[in-house]
């Protein structure tokens, strides 16, 4: 593997983690807002 490929190989994982973090947080906020509007617990 070249230096550039190895660098990308190391740094791609935190980038994917950031994307997953965004989707989970967005899902949670959406459910939290819905629960508030409907007057029920989120869990």
């Amino acid at each position, binding site marked *: *593997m070249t*230096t*550039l490929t*190895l*660098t990308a*190989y*190391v*740094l791609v*994982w*935190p980038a*994917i*983690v*950031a994307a*997953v*973090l965004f*989707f*989970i*947080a*967005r*899902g*949670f*906020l*959406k*459910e*939290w807002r819905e*629960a*508030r509007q*409907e*007057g*029920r*617990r*989120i*869990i």
Partner: protein
Amino acid sequence: MGSEGQQLSASVVILLLVLFFGGTMLMSILISKKKENADGYMTAGNNIGFGISAASMTATWIWASSMYASATSGYTYGISGPIHYGLWGALMILFIYPFGRRIRAVAPRAHTLAEVMYARHGRSSQLMLAGSNVVGSLISLTSNFIAGGALVAMLSPFTFTQGILVMAAGVLLYTLWSGFRASVLTDFAQVMAMLGAVVVIIPVVFFAAGGPDMFEAGATNLTPQQSNFFSSEAFLHQGAPYIAAVLAYAIGNQTIAQRLFAVREDLIKPTFITATIGYGATVIGIGMLGVMALYLGLEPVGGDTNNLIPQLATTYLGPILLCVFFIMIIGSLSSTADSDLSALSSIMMADVYGQNVAGRKKADPKTMLLVGRVTMIVATGAALYFASGQMNILDLLVFVGALWGALVFPVIASFYWGKVTNAAFTVGTLAAMAVFIPVRFEMLPDNLLVNLGVDVLSVIGIGVILGLMAFGFFGLRTAKWVGGISIVVSAPFVIGFLHDYHVLSGSLVAYSVSTLVCYLMSFRNSKNFDFALIDKRVGDFDPEEDQKTDDTAPTH
């Protein structure tokens, strides 16, 4: 360890622990009810949304040991090492999801997988699965407490014993009252902290340690196998035994089953896919720290590769990021430990008290809650006892893992094939264990016939594993083709060779023997089980009025 790099002061560690456990405790208090109900305590009403369930599945599956083990794999096997640890671990979540949909379809209101086995077969199948779940969760709980104690001892002036006591008390306090509901909600906050830390820590360590230049300067530190992305050594020693464990760990882990029964049914797929990607990227990413350590020529303190991550953290992170690192590890171990406590309490509530002591119709939800809470206290005490003596309880994982492997075919077949009987399930599993033990521990005579027998069973095991994986996604016809082709293709490479890899061949024979015995004892059965009976036999323990009251409780 601390002598190599910086340490956190006592006051900073106390502040971090108070912030972390105080925050989780506050979340737990906000959702607590004066009158908790038993079903909510076990599965939160089977109606959790995507955000919480995906966060919870991800947080639960990432435990402190998986972070350390992935870095160890990177350090030992080189650039492909973290993939051979994290990818297969992630696939454990992905490959169980098609089976999970089937399990939810036949048992929509279940609490544990063992409870469903009771409804499908009877007591012996249920207790085998529940027993293996209990031992597995207790091992995980102990391991997480040990990781917490070790971290506190490394990064602060406090001792290992003080560390495990704080971890155990913190996790127990916020989980005890609301059970699974507290576990999954706090998982959300923990996953935010944990994944957020991963996003920052990996690039910071990478650039602080020299950035791309380290790959040129440290290339000579790697063997040809370590610098090869397609390393056969990494595959055979790390990847292949993990592939064999993909279905076993998913089937045998009540923490996964519990989330499967808790998430809203239409959200099972996105939840499992998100958790697969989240777990894989996090654990592989952390494994890259091990690869960096290898390029840097770092020697683990005391020869213990578990010290690699803390060593890199104390060397390359500043004080604030070291605090973030501390929270990341505490988050990973707490989120798994609270899930283990919830899993253990559910098994004792539903499988032991609900099904075997009181009986489902006579089970009192209030007594069930008491059983659940007492279980959490006893389990924490037991795990503390094992952790404080530094007992090598992880050795038990070999047997539990094998039992889970032996259970895979009987459990999965029981949800699709009406001919499988309780006797076939039980005898198949026990026979597999009886063959596994001598293969795994090299107790068999070393002669051509025995070695050939082990190799042939291993080849069948490969076919069973790949066939079952294909079955989940593509159905029986494809599964037969995949299983058959795998056997034909692998046979020339495996026969005469694989019996020397005792860990791998032990796992494979467990799969093949349980499948063969279970199949041969079932296929002539003229009776077909009516799967609709499971929903009638497994259901809520709380009266309907309590469920309605629960649903309209105030919002927080």
